[in-house]
């Protein structure tokens, strides 16, 4: 399978999941969008040494994935892109920041190690959250939510139109790549002699396609407005749940609940 085809499969998989049905799927798109953004902002804003404080934030994605039935494994597969990057930024910290913050038994844990782990958590948690959003909310719904908060129409229309043609063009690139490699055994990529023409040909064809697309819009009386069918009715609990979650997240941000509970038990 070539890269374009893999990409197409990944999109289709998420797209398919987003059409599922669960308590999370039924929440209103706008409430989910807001909750996700607030969650990410709060998670990322934790102090870099506040390892126990941030840990409790894991409960939100856990509940979300459990309630939605979205396989966490898929989300972790996505981590392969973000994690190396975050690791790389953080890995230097243990070397540079060696002040011991606390002891676990006899082993001193340095500030660098703590901040590295916190950074990893931030990376993982924020990805889990945004992945949960797209895998429980179809893109059209996300765009509708964005329109509700007066996101410019041209961008949402462009997004949906692009999303529609991403499938078509990924398929074309995939076919072209296969066709190229069938005639050039042993080559890893496109040879320099075809650098321009490979994508160039696709540009020419795409430009024709855009022309036809425009014709087809014109013929159906397009005047700059897209009409999208109404989505399913969102559950009544959407906003209460979202607001409770946000309140909880804010509480967790200011009160180290984990430490308090731990203290009570000890």
């Amino acid at each position, binding site marked *: 399978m070539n890269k*374009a085809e893999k990409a197409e499969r*990944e999109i289709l998989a998420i797209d398919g999941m987003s059409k599922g049905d669960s308590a999370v799927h039924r929440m209103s798109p706008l409430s989910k969008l807001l909750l996700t953004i607030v969650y*990410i902002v709060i998670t*990322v*804003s934790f102090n*870099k*040494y*506040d390892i*126990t404080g*941030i840990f409790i934030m*894991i*409960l939100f994605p856990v509940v979300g994935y*459990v309630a939605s039935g979205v396989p966490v494994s898929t989300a972790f597969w*996505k*981590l392969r*892109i*973000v994690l190396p*990057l975050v690791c*790389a*930024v953080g890995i230097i*910290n243990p070397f540079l920041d060696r002040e011991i913050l*606390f002891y676990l038994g006899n082993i001193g844990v340095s500030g*660098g190690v703590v901040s590295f782990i916190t*950074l990893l958590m*931030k*990376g993982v948690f*924020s*990805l889990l959250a945004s992945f949960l959003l797209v895998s429980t909310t179809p*893109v059209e719904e996300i765009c509708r939510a964005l329109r509700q908060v007066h996101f*410019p129409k041209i961008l949402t229309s*462009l997004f949906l139109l*692009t*999303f*529609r*043609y*991403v499938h078509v*063009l990924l398929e074309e*690139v*995939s076919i072209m790549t296969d066709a190229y490699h069938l005639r050039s055994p042993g080559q*890893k*990529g*496109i040879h*320099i002699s075809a*650098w*321009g023409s*490979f*994508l160039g*040909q*696709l540009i*020419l064809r795409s430009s024709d396609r855009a022309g036809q697309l*425009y014709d087809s819009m014109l013929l159906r009386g*397009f*005047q700059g407005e897209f009409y999208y069918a109404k989505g399913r009715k969102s559950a009544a609990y959407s906003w209460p749940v979202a607001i409770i979650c946000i309140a909880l997240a804010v509480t967790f941000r200011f009160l*180290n*609940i984990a*430490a308090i509970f*731990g*203290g009570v*038990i*000890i």
Partner: protein
Amino acid sequence: MHMADALLSPAVAGVMIGASAVAAGVSIVKLRKEEKTELEPTIKKLPTMAVMAALVFAGQMINYTIPGTGSSGHLCGGMMLTGLLGPYAGFLSMIVVLLIQCLFFADGGLMAIGANVWNMAFYGCFIGYFLIYRPIMRSGWFRGMGLRGANRLKIIISSILGCVITLQLGAFSVVLETSISGITNLPFGAFVALMQPIHLAIGLVEGLITAAVLMFVYEMRPELLKDVQTDETVKGRASIKGTLISLAVVALLVGGGLSLLASSHPDGLEWSLFGNREEGYAENMGLDEDDYGIASDMADSAAAVQDKTSFLPDYAFAGDSENPAGTTVSGIVGCAIVAAVAALLCLVAGFFRKRKRINEQG
């Protein structure tokens, strides 16, 4: 050079979202204005923008073999979109490409979208177009070579210069944003020293691919390219002088960044660490087959200084920084409880799901 949410503090992310939003707003307004003067309505541009954005996205999945290296590079496409759509439409299309990457491929992050748009789309489309592509394409350079020859050379030069310079600016912004966010302990200067050379190589490859593609389009359908001179009389507004001035401005911007690097002298330990790491980068150069290779190198390099150069303190809510509460025993016990609760949740859910399935079958 997609940045993840974790690499930014909310304050920096917010500022970048604001800046990108302003640029997007200007683009929308300008497109509407063009609609009035060009008689080509925005709704006619919409299909072209969408198809080209989809094309750039799909085009990123193509591997290009780099002669003599055995590795391969790929395209990001900002400069190419600019050449095909112009700065405003190109910018909006790039935003959409970045959004799809962020939502479906976890390349970037929801909160970091502003920074990513700025680092990749803003520089590629606006700086790339107004300071590099347009002045060069409209200039009277290479007049002696005939119209076609001159246009070809101008396309090559503007593509390569455009990609290199805009990627340098983007890479520098990544360093700046991560450093201001106070994410790592890496010194600013060392970080810059890492990022810029890597992205010089990436920019060169991107520039060559862009040049090849735009040249092909020029040969086949020159009318698809912006600002291509179609007749012998050069009536472009920009002169060589203008071009040189704009190039000088860009050079100053880049140079300013580099001089910042020179002024901060990392100490021995840091340098030794970097010496080793740098080799790895050079080897990788972000040009390896996996397209995320670039991101990961960049990530590597995205290790930045925390204390020495941070302009803003670690973004934190009040009363937070003095006592990192997590360092106490009770904190650790608490975490264990949280972990247990999380595990329990998963178990219970698994149990109920299994029972539901059994019920459905029965």
